[in-house]
């Protein structure tokens, strides 16, 4: 196809591929992004299957019960990754913890993408006073020091609502500013096209113009953004939990497991307790970032790969 397009004069006999098909082909050819995708899917499947895998992996599949007789055992045949300071199997907790960390990341990303897209597209489409009002509000949200406010809000709301969902909501409600800005600028550029004018002139209601005509053209940007957001919101969860203000401490999550590294004797002498979560966080974040870069490349019609 590309050679045909390049020479221009050659007659096209076959149907040209759709933009999505081209993007898919580009993505499949990107080795780093494909390897990352395989890795991420593997992590997701393993964590989802935690309840089935745990009994086979460890003699103590319970993730919360404290076992005084089995405290801080280094990795061995029974416990592939050893046990933590409360005598719980690290491997089992890693699997269950992944579910929580990925759930928080995915749910918060969903909130952010929905909110950001609505605010951004409405502001971009209507322009004028609506635009300046919404964008001032976006600036306002972006101007909060994220970490400080999440911690403060968590302290206030804690105990009123279930801890995990407080965290997801707070992270989501404080992070949509960037997506809103990007969607707005894309919509602003896109609505200058004639087809939008045509749609408006035949009386299409604004909601329908935005959903049916504008958003499909902004979709590739949203997809790339939400991938990168997914990574940074997993970082937000693990970081907050590491500080002790994220997922409730009795629930295992990658961040809560890494929080054991706050104790100098664990950090110095018992690396099997904190290193697995640290490594899996890094590997997951890296793979999501590679997927995001791959998608960006694949969805960009100008890129050559």
């Amino acid at each position, binding site marked *: 196809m590309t050679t045909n397009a390049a020479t221009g004069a050659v007659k096209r006999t076959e149907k040209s591929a759709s933009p999505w098909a081209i993007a898919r082909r580009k993505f499949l050819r990107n080795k780093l992004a494909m390897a990352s995708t395989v890795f991420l899917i593997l992590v997701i499947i393993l964590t989802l299957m935690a309840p089935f895998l745990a009994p086979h992996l460890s003699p103590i599949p319970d993730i919360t019960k404290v076992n005084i007789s089995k405290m801080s055992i280094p990795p061995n045949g029974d416990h592939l990754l050893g046990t933590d300071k409360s005598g719980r199997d690290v491997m089992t907790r890693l699997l269950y913890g992944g579910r929580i960390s990925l759930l928080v990341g995915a749910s918060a990303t969903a909130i952010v993408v929905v909110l950001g897209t609505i605010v951004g597209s409405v502001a971009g489409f209507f322009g004028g006073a609506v635009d300046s009002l919404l964008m001032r509000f976006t600036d306002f949200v972006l101007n909060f020091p994220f970490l*400080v406010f999440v911690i403060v809000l968590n302290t*206030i709301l804690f105990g009123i609502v279930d801890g995990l969902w407080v965290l997801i909501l707070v992270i989501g409600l404080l992070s949509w500013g960037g997506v809103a800005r990007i969607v707005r600028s894309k919509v602003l550029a896109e609505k200058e096209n004639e087809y939008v004018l045509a749609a408006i002139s035949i009386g299409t209601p604004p909601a329908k113009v935005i959903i049916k005509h504008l958003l499909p053209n902004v979709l590739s940007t949203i997809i790339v953004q939400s991938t990168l957001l997914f990574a940074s919101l997993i970082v937000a969860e693990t970081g907050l939990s590491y500080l002790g203000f994220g997922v409730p401490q009795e629930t295992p999550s990658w961040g809560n497991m890494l929080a054991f590294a706050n104790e100098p004797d664990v950090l110095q002498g018992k690396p099997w307790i904190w290193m697995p979560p640290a490594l899996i966080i890094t590997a997951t974040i890296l793979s999501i970032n590679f997927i995001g870069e791959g998608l960006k490349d694949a969805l960009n019609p100008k890129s050559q790969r």
Partner: protein
Amino acid sequence: MLKYTLRRVLGMIPMLFLVSVVVFFLAKAMPGDSLSGEIDPTNTNPEYQEEMREKLGYNDPVYMQYYRWVTDFMSGDFGKSTRYKMPVADLIGEKLPNTIFLALTSLLITYVLAFAMGMYSGRKPYTLGDNLIAGFNYAGIAIPSFVAGVFAVYFFAFKLNWFPFAGSVDIEIDKGTIDYWISRIHHVMLPAFVLGMFSTASYTQFLRNDLIENSRKDFVRTALAKGTPMGKIYNVHILRNSIIPLVTFLGFDIAALVGGAIITEKIFTYPGIGLLFLDSVNNRDYPTVMAITMMLSAMVLIGNLIADILYGIVDPRIRLG
């Protein structure tokens, strides 16, 4: 330029007002008396509580309470810490120098490293050195700072014993001596590097790409044709163009350091504002928490303002926008 600066400063005031209103209502939503810290939380006698509330004006209309809080805050009265039984302003004043020292060292390391690596990569793109630097950059951008920090403490402080793993200075050394400062610098190096890792990586990459792009411009060809040595072209002609956008990042750095300092100070148990904030939340010392929240929010706003103004200086087109 003056008009633009003034407009930016004036534009910040409503934002500061809104942020302060949010912080005020958050403080009111917190349990106990988090605005002044005068009420003793251990004394649960309802008569005492009511008497104190009346005395401190908590039965007044909300806007009067807000006005009182804001004017107190601006005159430096941040209330009283319920934990340390001393004014929050003194408490913050004690820890602030440590955080500022950490932030400045971090900025220094960031800019020095970014310049050295960016210049090298930009002049010799697609070589082994460039690829190594690109690998470091990718790691710096993708690995979360707290994971990097934990690994840094493990390897450099515990395994290699190069750096201390906690604190800001050796307590045995007398204040003011040269040893004291050496010890402080020794303590701050590792946290400062971790704190600046993300910015270092992004600036290096930015400088590299900018150098490569600028080196293809016509004025470079002209200079080359006139016989200017390549080194001089890079150091004088190109760098001057590439340095400008980099300077504008300084404002964003101030905003980013606010969040970064909290995590970094926690990892390295470095006694600054961030650690004070976390300890105060854990000990329910809400007046201190709210004062620091307001202070850090104001710093983010000021950081963004500085970024805006620097942008205006660098790029005249922005001033009209």
